[in-house]
């Protein structure tokens, strides 16, 4: 194989980081952070997902075309969430008849 791949050392390091993030999100859920609870959980999950995509799925070393497809996949997801939540989030603004 001539294409670049993460080394075993990198994979194990990323795995340890993922376990630490799991411990962090579990511990954070036991404290009452009010409205920040959900935001903290989401940011930690997104960080874990990014680590898995970049290293386990070796997108960090992938061709530009692959990286473009990955980014497009999440961009479509962002469009779906942005437009749908813009709808549900603003319905209360209408005067009730």
């Amino acid at each position, binding site marked *: *194989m001539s*294409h670049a791949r993460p080394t075993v050392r990198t994979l194990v390091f990323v795995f340890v980081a993922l376990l630490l993030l799991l411990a962090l*999100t*579990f511990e954070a*859920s036991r404290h009452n952070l009010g409205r920040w609870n959900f935001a903290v959980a989401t940011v930690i*999950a997104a960080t874990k*997902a990014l680590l*898995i995509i970049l290293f*386990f799925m070796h997108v960090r070393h992938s061709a530009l075309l692959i990286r473009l497809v990955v980014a497009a996949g999440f961009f479509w997801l962002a469009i779906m969430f942005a437009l*749908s939540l813009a709808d549900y989030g603003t319905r209360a603004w209408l005067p009730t008849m």
Partner: protein
Amino acid sequence: MVDVHSTRVPSAVRSHSDSASHSALLPPSALAHQFDDIEQQHAADELGIWLFLATEIMFFGGMFLAYAVYRRQDEAAFAAASTKLDAGLGAINTAVLLCSSLTMALAVHAAETAQRKHLIALLVLTIFLGTVFLGIKGYEYHHKYEVGLMPLAGFPFVWEGPSAGHAQMFFNLYFVMTGVHALHMLIGLGVLTVLAIKALRGGLLGEFATPVNITGLYWHFVDIVWVFLFPFLYLVR
């Protein structure tokens, strides 16, 4: 009958002599004839699985969107319903799945560096960890059924607190999302079993490692889905 049989024999002989002369000229190659070189073929293989995974992002994304919309309507009910799930078991299952992602990534490494024994051991370990995950999930499902928190297929939904409607919606989402995720795990375990058999027969090494790499990308994607399901279902407070 006699005619069919007599036409088959020469064609079988011909194809056999074809493959024999082919292997005499060239060493066995993983390169399909429509590609210029192995690098181009690998790029096409990876593009294919990533396009599939992009559709999977939207597939699971639709369910996460439904979750977001219903959670906005009654956050207190979702938080109350979430406390009925066992966060400890959820965390253990997350750790099990992260371990299986590591063994999968190491299996891809072993296949590409042609380490046959490591490849077989890592594939079997990945299958084992995936099975442990599904076992714990099955135990959780059974417990929810016993305490009346499985509002599926006509089973009763027992809820003491306020906003029973939104609590029931939380459990509907819980069972559909984790159920579809578990189905993806089952499919992954089936593919991994086929790979383990091929590896036992000495295949999937070096330039033939593509099926391991492609399956790995699928397996890691299913892991990512769980990475979001765990906090959104088990840790909402």
